[in-house]
């Protein structure tokens, strides 16, 4: 009896504590907008994060202000909400990093099975390169 009560209690805690909402989505099957996808290079040191906040693809475009805009599609392959933080680092044509508020660390979250986009704009027209950092937040 005690074992059953304990199991019931544990199950109740598990149900209350876990955020397991996952996302369904519907979109246009014949998309009119064309994304300019770029080949990317990845360094993964947190395998768990790479599963929950996985990078699907990266595309770029020039904005009306003639600065580079980068958009990254993320996918949460798990069923649980994952909080994370991201930082875009920007580099000029000489490979020198440019540091200002556009390289801030931004907190975000992604629901279970959700696909979402994050984007950033380069700090000036001379920026030609970037790096995205993703870090898990509890």
């Amino acid at each position, binding site marked *: 009896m005690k074992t059953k009560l304990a199991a019931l209690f544990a199950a109740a805690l598990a149900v209350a504590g876990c955020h397991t909402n996952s996302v369904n989505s519907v979109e246009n099957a014949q998309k009119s907008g064309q994304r300019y996808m770029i080949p990317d290079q990845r360094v993964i040191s947190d395998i768990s994060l790479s599963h929950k906040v996985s990078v699907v693809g990266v595309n770029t475009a020039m904005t009306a*202000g003639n*600065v580079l*805009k980068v958009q990254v599609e993320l996918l949460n392959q798990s069923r649980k909400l994952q909080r994370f*933080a991201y930082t875009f680092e920007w580099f000029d044509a000489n490979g020198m990093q440019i540091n200002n*508020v556009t390289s*801030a660390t931004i*907190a975000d979250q992604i629901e279970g099975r959700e696909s979402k986009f994050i984007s*950033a*704009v380069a700090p000036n027209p001379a920026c030609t390169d970037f790096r995205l950092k993703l870090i898990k937040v509890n």
Partner: protein
Amino acid sequence: MNTKSLLWLAAGLTLITGCGTNAHYIQTGGTQSVVSVDQINIQDFISAANAATSDLLASGALDRVSNPPAVLAMSRIVNNTSQQIDTDLLTKKIRVALLQSGKAVTTTTFGLGGPEDPLARNIQQQEGKPTRLPDFTLSGKIIETFAKAGNTKQSTYSFQLSLTDQRGLAVWEGDKDITKQGTRSGVGF
């Protein structure tokens, strides 16, 4: 005192001395920052400035001047929160980023309530140099809203900005909401 008691004592002492950290540096606005539900943290200002700057640069609004770079003057940023905050925590980051972008410079001799740099203004007047009127002014408001459900507190800080040209028209508007939730006043990032 038996061995078991000594072990418990040792464990207790380790716990007391091990908990609590010495003062150390962390990355400003980084993942180790404290998140306060009932006040605006520095990472909130950084996030809002990031959103405003990125959107403003991407819009191209600052490029539509006859004599680039555009001259920007700071106007009123209303604090509609319950805290005393210095709105420069938001606007200075935007100004620095716009200057580094090459798209705008901020005038410090022309502003709401007088020049930001009175000495520069005096020198300008003594030199007889004409004051270039600003092409744009930046104004805005910071608003806070609270909600509570049981033990859970939620606060939303809305950072609203407008870029107005010489015709008095808002040629760019930005609105960034930052919502925080928790059961305690302050938690980790």
